[in-house]
């Protein structure tokens, strides 16, 4: 059971980590589809 919980925790860490990293690298929809003069949020 320990491995199941560890795997699910790792899944959450990877998901949040990927979202943060890709956002920081400029891969967000906002960065990819709009110019600097457009603000979506």
């Amino acid at each position, binding site marked *: 059971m320990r*491995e*199941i919980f560890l*795997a699910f925790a790792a899944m959450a860490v990877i998901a949040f980590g*990927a979202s943060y990293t890709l956002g920081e690298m400029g891969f967000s929809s906002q960065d990819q589809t709009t110019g600097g003069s457009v603000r979506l949020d």
Partner: protein
Amino acid sequence: MLRLFSVFLLAMFFALPAYAQEAEPAPDRSATGGAQTLEDIMRRQQGLEVDNSFRSSNTGNPTGGASPTDQLGTLGGASDPDLWRGLRFDSADITTQIQHPAATVLIQDTGMWWLQFREGPLTKYGFGLVLGTMALLVLFYLIRGRIRIDGEKTGRKILRFKSIERFAHWLLAGSFILLGLTGVISLLGRNFLIPALGPEGFSTIAIGAKWVHNNVSWAFMLAIVMIFVLWVVHNLPHRSDINWLLKGGGIFGGGHPPARKFNAGQKFIFWSVIILGGSISASGLSLLFPFELPMFAATFEKLNQFGIPQLLGLGELNTNLAPHTEMQYAQLWHAIVSFVLFAIVIAHIYIGSVGMEGAYDAMGSGEVEEQWAREHHSLWVEEVKSKEAKAGGSS
């Protein structure tokens, strides 16, 4: 499951050429001087396939018209309809200030085909496959019942999967199920969740599902790499697999055919996960980074070179794909392969849980009852015992 999959592949193999042979001859357009006919318009409205080749290349000749400075000169060799046809079939020379791979595609002609296929056959046959597999498993359970441990239990345990192996398995399993659920919400959510929750309620769920799907996909890809590295050695073909397959794994009696760490059925699951999961990951990456990683035009080109579509009676595949068409093919392929893998994995979940006594322990605690191991993986038990004896002898 193997037999079913073979039948499916064979059916597809024979059905595709038959489908291709049913193509209708080109309609007579002499009455309209080569322009589209009422029949073309009606076919398009009915969602039927229309051969647009007679229009797609009819985009005028910009250099062919008399110069506007000449007496009775024209405004060029391309009329407005010519220009619109050029836009529609993605052959017009477009310049935009937006620097984006898809920015110059103003009309995407194949978009409706994709939408209709996505909401029609993809949904119908995809869910049909998954629900059909579930129904077959219920039927199998009713006929065969739970596969019990035949011999007397020994009370001794053998370590079957180490901690890292179980971690990789559950990372893959957890992410795959989550991706499956969120994928279904993305594919069909608007059809059954909007009536239940309203547009705003669905919007929140759809945004959440998209976030989960996009980001949990990295865990899925990592897990595929992990299980490949951990288990590929044990999943290479072995002569014992032939005997195992000939005896149908002993599912309907006939004893327990000898097997190593993984039997032929498990090897089929492993390679399905690696190949189909790898393909889902590739098309998923293409979708995750829109227009940046197109892969279908290049794949079609390779297939044309090997003559595979021609062999199936499909003719040469179109390799001049608009960026949006690339994305649409990626979406369809992603969903089709996911449905197939889901059907296979459902059978795996069944046999690893309710279908077989003692099977879950392998991925639960990692240790299995020795009698279970002797019945289902006798060659592996011998291997383990021999290693233990050697280790005992040398210490």
